[in-house]
């Protein structure tokens, strides 16, 4: 109400004034403001203040999120003297790459990078393939007990993996799959600390957060138009072919999003890494054991003198930075897929 009245009055005020002499912008604004009973000035001040507050808040929060990265980086490029110099806080006096070299050596960086990429990639591909099939089945077919099985998907989302840890540990230590393995092999096999164990888990859509991917993909498939499939079916296209040739190409953005999540979360995961992938030297394990490795290596080199806290912290910072650089790079390149993923799925309960 007020707004409309205000602009109208302001307009008439302007046209009335424009006859005699050209008023400055400021005078014009004052005139309009007076005509609107101070409403114009009030809203403008409120808007500017609001924007200012938002900029301050966003800047502060962004800084808050990025600060650990800055801190880790400045720690990582400090030389030994800088670490012990109390006057050096953020910017090192003699920046050096020595920490990076040593961390690379301790983490066996290049070979673990290679094996991490291979393992994480294959695990993520397998998980997303399984989840896509399952999600499509849930979104497009009606079958008895469908609600029950979907409730099971929700169960996999909310059961913490630690709950079934003991059972998983023993089941993979003596892997038997209801007696099938003994039947073929003669005795159960040990799949702990093998990639195969985790691949089997992934193929069954039971890897890290797989319930969530099923949920997201199902939402996405449900929102896709049904007509496409129907016309494909009328043209004599089978179920599997419809899925592979009609539905999958349209779902590529969502599949990429889910794959990226699977890849990135698998990269840093500690639980399944501890159970299956520790021995393979994946990055998550290398990062979390770097502190100990450094302590041992340092003590060996310096006649059993342990390294100082600052040195350990600098080393861990370096290792973490090196370990997450690949996934940060992926995030920066494919940021759109992460940001749009949830929006695409139209998640709701």
């Amino acid at each position, binding site marked *: 109400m007020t707004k409309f009245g205000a602009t109208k009055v302001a307009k008439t005020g302007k046209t009335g004034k424009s006859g005699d002499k050209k008023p400055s912008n400021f005078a014009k604004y004052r005139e309009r403001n007076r005509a609107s009973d101070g409403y114009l000035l009030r809203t403008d001040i409120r808007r500017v203040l609001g924007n200012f507050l938002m900029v301050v*808040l966003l800047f502060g929060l962004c800084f808050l999120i990025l600060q650990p990265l800055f801190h880790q980086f400045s720690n990582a490029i400090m030389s030994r003297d800088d670490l012990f110099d109390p006057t050096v806080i953020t910017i090192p006096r003699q920046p050096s790459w020595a920490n990076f070299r040593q961390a690379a050596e301790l983490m066996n960086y290049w070979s673990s990078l290679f094996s991490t990429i291979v393992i994480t990639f294959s695990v993520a591909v397998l998980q997303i393939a399984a989840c896509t099939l399952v999600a499509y089945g849930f979104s497009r077919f009606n079958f008895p007990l469908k609600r029950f099985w979907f409730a099971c998907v929700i169960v996999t989302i*909310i059961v913490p993996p630690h709950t079934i840890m003991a059972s998983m540990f023993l089941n993979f230590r003596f892997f038997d799959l209801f007696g099938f393995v003994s039947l073929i092999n003669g005795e159960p096999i040990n799949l702990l600390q093998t990639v195969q164990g985790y691949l089997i888990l992934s193929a069954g859509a039971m890897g890290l957060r797989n319930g969530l991917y099923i949920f997201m993909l199902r939402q996405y498939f449900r929102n896709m138009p049904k007509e496409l499939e129907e016309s494909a079916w009328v043209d004599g296209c089978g179920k599997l072919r419809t*899925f592979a040739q009609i539905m999958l190409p349209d779902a590529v953005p969502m599949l990429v999003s889910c794959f990226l999540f699977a890849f990135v979360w698998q990269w840093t995961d500690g639980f399944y890494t501890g159970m299956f992938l520790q021995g393979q030297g994946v990055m998550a394990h290398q990062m979390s054991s770097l502190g100990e490795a450094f302590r041992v290596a340092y003590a060996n080199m310096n006649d059993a003198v342990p390294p100082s806290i600052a040195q350990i912290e600098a080393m861990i910072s370096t290792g973490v930075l090196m370990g*997450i650089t690949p996934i940060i790079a992926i995030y920066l390149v494919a940021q759109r897929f992460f940001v749009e993923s949830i929006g695409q799925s139209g998640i709701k*309960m």
Partner: protein
Amino acid sequence: MVKAKGGKSGKKGMTMSTKNAISGYLFILPFIIGFVAFMAYPLYQTVRFAFSFVTMDAVNNTFFIEWTGLENLRRALTIDPDFVRFLTEEIVQMAFVVPAIVIFSLFVAIMLNRKFPGRAFVRAIFFLPVILASGVLIGIETNNSLLDMVATQIQDQNAMRANVTGFIEDLLISATGAGVMGDFVFYILDITNEIYTIAMASGIQILIFLAGLQTISPSIFEAASIEGATAWENFWKITFPMVSPMILVVVVYSIVDFMVRTDSEVMNMVEIQIMRLMNFGFGSALALVFFLAIAAILGVVGFIISRLVYYYD
């Protein structure tokens, strides 16, 4: 949804729907096998372990289960010095952090939904915690026992030292005094101190809220402002009801995510019992109690919130 009903199963008769059911089951077969073998059976076994003493026999490639009744649970709940304390601490902290996460992420999502220069960049930064706070990365520095010790020392020193925020905190607390208002101020101060934890835990939640906000059609807001609604009224009368289904999703996700984070004390305890000490029975009992606690909380919270949720369509 309407289309799904009228589509295939309806007019084509029995055979079609049977075929549909079979292909449906074929599609979800990986999940059924995976679920039965690696979730349902382990869950059943966990319950069994929780009431037993389990020993591993590596020579004969098998393990033995010896029924001990409530012994493990009794040990967990009455004898173990840490477990009950860790569990209650965890739940209390969750009760603090989860509401803060929900409010914070809704607030940030509303800010990020506005148009301003550099929005894509700011969004990218806010979702960075999805990576930075995942898996082993969270608390990687506190995992190192020595560093942890020093960190607590530094915190203690900071608590003693006078600084601006500390002064404001003292002032606010003395001004409001005891009672409800004082508790509220305490809560706000606690949350402000935890702002880093909260920001790092809200990446996905912001995404969910943003997705929800983008589904609200702008014409509703237009109509409201023509009627003279203020931004405050717009928020409570339009935005909030429209994103309320998302609140349910976000609360459930936050609770689960908070409970299974890597630096959770209970999780560490379970992991140590099982992976290092090979106390499979006792570890399972701990894990089971923990899971039941989560499930109960989720059930209650989910029930309450789903009563309050408003569905637009």
